[in-house]
């Protein structure tokens, strides 16, 4: 299909969400900087959010059999708010970690090794 001339659907949004999600996962997996890991988390959450909003949208499906309706937006809102809270705590933890270890390298945070 020609994406420029035909209306897009939920699936296209979900693809973007999937890409962001995957990028987030990679980001979490490869960044040694704690802040990088944090950004990965943000990406992951955001990717999920796209799915929620897309599934709740009226513009992307005809009959809305699988539509979340406004609930999708509610969930997205809560995710955003909780992500903000999570970021605040994670940052605080990072700062604490930095205070204790003088680094933000997560590979150095292996004191819980079995």
């Amino acid at each position, binding site marked *: 299909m020609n994406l420029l001339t035909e209306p897009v659907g939920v699936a296209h949004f979900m693809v973007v969400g999937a890409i962001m999600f995957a990028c987030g*996962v990679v980001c*979490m*997996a*490869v*960044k*040694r900087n704690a802040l990088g*890991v944090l950004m*990965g988390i943000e990406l992951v959450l955001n990717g999920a959010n796209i799915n929620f909003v897309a599934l709740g949208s009226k513009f992307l499906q005809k009959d809305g059999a699988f539509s979340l309706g406004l609930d999708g937006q509610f969930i997205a809102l809560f995710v955003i708010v909780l992500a903000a809270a999570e970021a605040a705590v994670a940052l605080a933890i990072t700062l604490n970690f930095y205070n204790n270890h003088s680094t933000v390298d*997560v*590979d150095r*945070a*292996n*004191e*819980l*090794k*079995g």
Partner: protein
Amino acid sequence: MDLDVLLPKLLCIAWLLPLASFTLIVFFGPRMGKKGILASYVAAGAIVTSFILSLIAFVSWIGANGVAAPGGHHGDEHAAVSPLPVDASNSPSPMRLASLADTHAADSHGHDEHAVHEVHKPVAYTGTWYTLGQFGDLKITISYYIDALTVCMFTMVTLIASCIHFYAIGYMHDELHDITDTQVLVTKGYRGHGHGHAGHGHGAHDAHAHAHDDAEHDDHGHGHSDLPPPPAGYDYLHRPGRFHRFFQYLSLFCFSMLGLVIAGNIAMVFVFWELVGVCSYFLIGFYIERKSASNAANKAFIVNRVGDFGMIIGLMALWGSLGTFAFGDVDGQQGLFSQVRNSAHNYELRTPDGMVLQAASDEIARGVEPTAKQIETWRSEKLGYWLLVIAGLGIFCGCVGKSAQFPLHVWLPDAMEGPTPVSALVHSATMVAAGVYLVGRFYPMFTPEVLLVIAYIGLITLFIAATIAITASDIKRVLAYSTVSQLGYMMLALGIGGWSAGLFHLITHAFFKSLLFMCSGSVIHACHTNDMFRMGGLRKKMPWTAYTMLAGCLAIIGTPLFSGFYSKDAIVAQAVMFTKQNPAHGILLYGFAGGAAMTAFYMFRLWYMTFSGKPRDHHVYDHAHESPKVMYVPLVILSVFAVSVGWTMPFFGLSLTNLLEQARPAGEIGTGVLLPALSYPAEYLSHAPSVHLIATLIASATAAGGFLLATLFYGVHKLDAADVKRQFNPIYYFLVHKWYFDELYNFIFIKPLFFVSSIISKIDKNLIDVFIDKLAVGVKALSRVDDAIDRYVVDGFVNVIGNWTYSAGRSLKAVQTGKLRQYVMFIVVGTVALTVIMQWALAAE
């Protein structure tokens, strides 16, 4: 506001205020001011406010119902209140049961001579505040029954209680600081169970303290400068003051008493009855470390319990047969009074249908149809009448206990162990009055037979108590026996049909007896002894106390113009009428007259020994002093009331009797069913001038006789009391030992009880214990086996699992790398793998 709305509100607040004060003091007592001094202000404030509210209720009652007695009983003395044409059955609840002249009923049943007089139903406001629960038809409610009697009692109780609160602030002053109780010895080095331990602990008893129970019953254990040294090896008990606790109990007591008075059903009465008993227990045992006090408290409680047992039987009889506890009609439901005496039958006593049916249950079971006609037949066969008698006797049993009537009178004199304000409030003015009050309240339910029992019990009580009082040496005990005796008067009065006379005496007595007690407290406060033989000549030292007490004595013996005169006069008049109608029971009048003479004798014996003559003990005399103002001002107030409460107010025509008449139960007592010879005269007949003249003569003569005798013995010492004592030595000792009642009870009840319990204890020790021992040995053996199983089987199993888990954990440890990024990978790989596996599995289906 209408009275039916106003009165419940006012009295409810007046009733609950002491509860609020109690609650406050319970929680914050020790922190109220220095050593809890504020607690007394809180309690006094609450009761004074209650009094003011009661007074407002009193005044508004008069405003609404007038001061005159209803009906034409008094002929030309009072104008009859024109009866309001309100149909009681139609009026809404809480209804104003107006003075309803049931002339129709009177006409149709105009068969006896009383029917020419109009029959009135008393004005009463009934209603329910709160329903606690409903069991079938029976509602357990917090309800009220307010009539003139309730209002009078409320005013009286709160007034006296207010005076006593103020008095107690002064009297209990010592409790504000630590106290050395010279009457309690403890072994040296004993420090008590910690200071301020709550409740009545057993501190001193546990530590083998010895009650140092000498003849001296000193309320005040606090240290004088000249304390005699304690015996070797012992110390006097030293404990913190309990000022706030005293007022806490007083408040609770006031709450309970007011609740009892306002109660609208007999179940609620019973609850508050018990509460009053508990308060009495607390207050008698206030000096809990003293063995005598704690014994007296126990005695009071247990003896009351005996009476309450009878009361419970009465309650069950009522509930089982009538299905209600309420006095008056509430919400269209017939109360007890209406069931026994209803307007359709001219308020005559009829066995209620419920009781008839109850008694005829056998026949109903046999299939006899309980139609209205059949019920009438049964009723004429006296079926169910016995049940009514039993209910009445049961309720009266409770009154016997509470009002210290023979044979349960033994607790009241011992109750003098409590602080004197308590004696004044609880054991003269209010609590013991509760029994009389309940007889008065429950009057419509009593059959003539029950009333006769009441009368005889009253007579016996008054006679026994009066004789004991003559020989007592302890000033408070004299008063205590006097109280018992006066309560006997009231019971007698009620028992011979003198309803208003009895209750009138209840109220006048409350005033002058509380006055007398408080005066005696003042004396004790001054002399630090209860023993009259160590007093004398105190009139000069403490004039306020002496003359207020003189007023009290004059009132109690029935000196004309003093309140006691009016009430006693009414009783005598009723007694005269009663014996005229029932010559067989003439002893009631003679016993009464003899009692009155003895009253005069022992009261003036007391006064003379205390206040006149020469001081017998100079040590005591030198220490004596007038009490502080906070104590004698209440005395003066009370003495004013003690003198004047029986008067008919000029111009207003306000008199207590008229007010009480407004609450008089409707209907005549009538003649006995089981004792047909017994017939009760209506009380108004005793107001006839001819009867009154006789009555006044009898009352005055007996009182004067007693007074003269006392004066001869103790006032002017013309006769020597010691001589008489020698002459009648056996009788004297018989009386000093209180008719050997305690010994009798000891022999009849306590000794057998000990015997039985010792047998039971032997059975317990030799049979049951041995069995249990053997059982224990068996169990022990069994547990050894069990232990082995536990050790080797269960533990072994658990250990194996534990080892497995441990080794598994060791080998899985390597997975826990502590690297965040690897964990992320694990999660993602896990998610992907899970999804793939699930899809594969689903596809395979």
